[in-house]
């Protein structure tokens, strides 16, 4: 499925459907089923509704909701210090973004369908159904060259409400360097010796120019007492390509040189984009923030 992820182990979608494909059918109101539980007759390459069926009410913020879910997964993984989970969620986010770029959600069309010839009068057992879904998932994974399988346990029970729907949770993604004090629940749960503390960041500089961490007006905000807020800071990226693709030379930050007064947080639509901000509220005036940033060194 291009849009949602189908888990063959559960036999269910991992994201609730935001569309009601057939309002007249009770199955349409089960937001986790696949093609109205009728895989012999219908396919669902988009992940949102059976192929060929066009809902009259496709939400305009569909892409936002889906990508937001993966950003939430990224945030949860960071909080768990689950580097692999973070990378998996990040990859899914990119796949979803690519899917939305290639899929006109107002005119969903089958990409390449998996089919088997069976006796339509013979009901399918649960095991046969599961086997069929597995083969279909493997086929789509191969033809679409994107991940289809997902571990069911990646959606934590705490993320679901009593109806089973995944709760909305805003992604606050941040982590501290070794030795830095904690300021929020997210950070308190973070082991500073984990792989995230060793994550590598890159800052860009125009070719031929020296690297600079000097904050400008576009970088930070101040509170009512003129302290720099912890929510905005100097941009860095977690991979060199994000920098070089914009015509800048990427410089790797020496983590040990980042003072304890600063921390990294992920911000913005690009999951690779992070910002260096004050570690604690109401601690740094703009000139102090600039002085702390100046202590950061890069590998030359």
């Amino acid at each position, binding site marked *: 499925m291009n849009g949602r992820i189908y888990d063959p182990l559960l036999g269910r979608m991992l994201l609730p459907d935001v569309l009601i494909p057939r309002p007249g059918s009770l199955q349409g109101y089960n937001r986790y089923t696949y093609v109205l539980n009728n895989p012999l007759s219908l396919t669902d390459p988009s992940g949102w509704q059976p192929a060929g069926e066009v809902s009259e009410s496709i939400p305009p913020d569909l892409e936002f909701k889906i990508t937001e879910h993966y950003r939430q997964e990224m945030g949860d993984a960071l909080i768990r210090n689950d580097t692999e989970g973070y990378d998996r969620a990040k990859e899914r986010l990119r796949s979803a973004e690519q899917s939305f770029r290639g899929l006109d959600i107002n005119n969903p069309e089958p990409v390449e369908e998996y089919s088997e010839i069976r006796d339509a009068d013979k009901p399918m057992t649960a095991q046969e159904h599961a086997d069929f879904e597995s083969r279909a998932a493997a086929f789509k994974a191969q033809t679409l060259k994107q991940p289809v399988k997902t571990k069911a346990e990646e959606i934590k029970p705490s993320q679901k409400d009593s109806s089973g729907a995944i709760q909305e949770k*805003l992604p606050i993604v941040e982590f501290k360097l070794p030795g830095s004090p904690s300021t*929020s629940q997210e950070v308190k749960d973070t082991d500073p010796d984990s792989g995230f503390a060793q994550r590598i960041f890159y800052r860009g500089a125009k070719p031929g120019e020296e690297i600079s961490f000097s904050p400008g007006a576009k970088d930070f905000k101040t509170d009512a007492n003129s302290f720099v807020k912890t*929510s*905005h800071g100097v941009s860095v990226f977690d991979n060199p390509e994000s920098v070089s693709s*914009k015509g800048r030379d990427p410089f790797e930050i020496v983590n040990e040189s980042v003072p304890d007064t600063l921390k990294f947080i992920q*911000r913005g639509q690009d999951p690779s984009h992070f910002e260096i901000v004050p570690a604690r509220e109401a601690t740094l005036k703009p000139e102090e923030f600039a002085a702390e940033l100046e202590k950061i060194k890069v590998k030359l």
Partner: protein
Amino acid sequence: MNQYELRWPEHFEDDAWEIESKGWFNGLEINFEGRSLRPMFYDPIRLRQDIAEELSNSGFFRERALIVVKCITRQAIEQVVEELAVRGDLSYLFRQDFR
């Protein structure tokens, strides 16, 4: 009268790629009917992140002259300002005393 003037900061083009990644921007000055205003432009993702953080830190979020666009690019911002002007909403925006 929907004539307005946009004043972009110097070297905006140099920083445009970073500003788009950040998802917020308040450096554009709009001059309209003898007054000037610097709206706060946000993309939806960054806005939600900042609202969450502000609610956590201070219990509320406020931003004057807030305009949300799909992404923080010069083209997107110019389009929305033009749209506001055509609709007459620029007059409404400037009637607020944000300064």
